[in-house]
Each structure stands twice: as structure tokens, then as C-alpha cells.
């Protein structure tokens, strides 16, 4: 089946996640071979995901971990021997 661009866009997210079936995957790949616009959309979306997963993009507040463990230490110290019983 020959896919149009709009059809490819609808499946781009699933294509990236590799959750499209083999037949659709093949159709999409065939379309991408000759369609620069869809290839650019796919590449740019992938780039965004790479950037999103990069720890430097979404940083934690400075000292977050230290404060978290300090608070936790207080909680542990004030809890009984078996604090985790329901």
C-alpha cells in the first residue's frame, strides 16, 4: 500500500517506539526513502527524544539529593524498630 504523508505522521510515534506491525513498518520505510519532509519530521522528533532523555536537559535542583536523604534520615531515626508495618 502506498502511504501518504498524513498517514505516516499519524504513526510516527508508534514507529519510533517500534510498535507498528511489520507490514506498516515496511510501508512507512518505503515512504521515508523518497519523502524528505517525513524523514525530517522523523529525525527532528527523534532528536527531541534524545535531548529529553539527556540528564542535562531536565536538571534537579542543586542539593536536592542531599536534602532528601537528610529528611529521610530524620524519618528513619524517629521511626520504631519495625516502622514499615501496615
Amino acid at each position, binding site marked *: 500500500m502506498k502511504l501518504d504523508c*498524513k498517514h505516516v*505522521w*499519524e504513526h*510516527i*510515534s*508508534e514507529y*519510533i*517506539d517500534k*510498535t507498528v506491525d511489520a507490514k506498516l513498518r515496511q510501508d512507512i520505510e518505503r515512504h521515508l526513502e523518497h519523502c*524528505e*519532509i517525513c*524523514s*525530517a*519530521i522523523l*529525525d*527532528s*522528533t527523534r*532528536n*527531541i*527524544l*534524545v*535531548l*529529553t*532523555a*539527556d*540528564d*542535562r*536537559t*531536565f536538571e*534537579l*535542583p542543586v542539593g*536536592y*539529593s542531599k*536534602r*532528601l*536523604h537528610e*529528611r*529521610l*534520615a530524620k*524519618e*528513619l531515626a524517629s*521511626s520504631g*524498630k*519495625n*516502622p*514499615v*508495618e*501496615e
Partner: protein
Amino acid sequence: METTEAGLIARILAGEKELFHELIRPYERMVYLTLFAIVKSETDAEDGAQDAVINAFRHLASFRGEAKFSTWLTTIAINEGRKRLRKAKGAAEQSMEEQEESHEGDFTPAPLTDWREIPLEALERKELREALRVAVAELPDIYRQVFTLRDLEELNIEETAQALGINPGAVKVRLHRARMMLQKRLAPFLKTTAPGRKGFFGRAL
């Protein structure tokens, strides 16, 4: 000595509670980001993350291992975030759970006509990271939450669905829309990495 996650949990429950520090360490980032995706304030997200971790400790015995520990913890973080949001907004406001995907709206990506493959160095640019942070923060809540769990924290579709209490189909739809909205939003930033054509007076078009 048992050092797997299940082993750690068993030891903590048996009384070696100090090990909870170790158990939680790999998930600190995830807990914070989950809270931040819901409350959208750094201070509130940090306070909420602390409360969620304390809560997880207090209720560890109720973790039965049917779900992964990370999913269980994420659910606690989400509940903490929702609680804070309700408190902040008051009962009169529409609660998050009531929001649904709007059937309106344009979720098509932006075509990049002069696209060139972005060199890796371009992705290193700070402005791009900043633009992405802003774009994610401005996504409608239901889309930002799915996007955060799935693409930032890298939970799978099932885990994301379980943590948010929605079905996997809704996760896929929201994720697709979130990604397309971000692509559209960031397209201008991505485009400028291509060699610019010159317009009048030498300005890049």
C-alpha cells in the same frame, strides 16, 4: 548479603531500615520529575518528592511486588502531586483526573523544508535545552504527564498506564500528541541549525 532490589526490600522490612537510602537512590530523579510534571514548581516538586519518599518508606510493607518497585513508587509520587494540586487549586477547580483528550486541536507535525540532519554538537546547545524545557512545561497537563513518564523517565507504555491509572491506548494517543506538539514547537529551533539562506541585507531567512 542480598543486594537485589527485592532483597533490599526484604531486609528493610526485616528491620535494616537504613538500607532504604540505598533502595531509593536510583529513583530520586524519577520521583522529582514526576512531581514536577504535576505541580510545575521546583519548590513544591522538591517538598512533594520528599513526602513521597517518606510515604513510600512508611508503606513499604504494602508493596507486594506485583508491580515493579519503580511503578509503585511513581504511583505514590503521582498521588502526592495530585494531592498538592488539589490543595493549591481548591475543590472548585476542575481536577486533573477529569481532563480528557480534546478531540479538537491540531496534532500534526511541522514540516521542515530546509532540514539537514542535526549534527550532535547542535544538540549540545543550551538554547535548545531551554526551549525544550519551556515547551514541555507548557504542554497541557495530561500530555506533559504521559510524556514525562514515558520519554523522560523511560517507563514503558504499560507502566505509564498503570502509574497514571489510564489505559494503554490513552497513553499512546497522549504520547503521540505530546511528541507532535513538541516537534511543532521546537521546529524553528531545530531548523536554524541548518545552514541559513541569506535574505535581504544579509539576514538569515
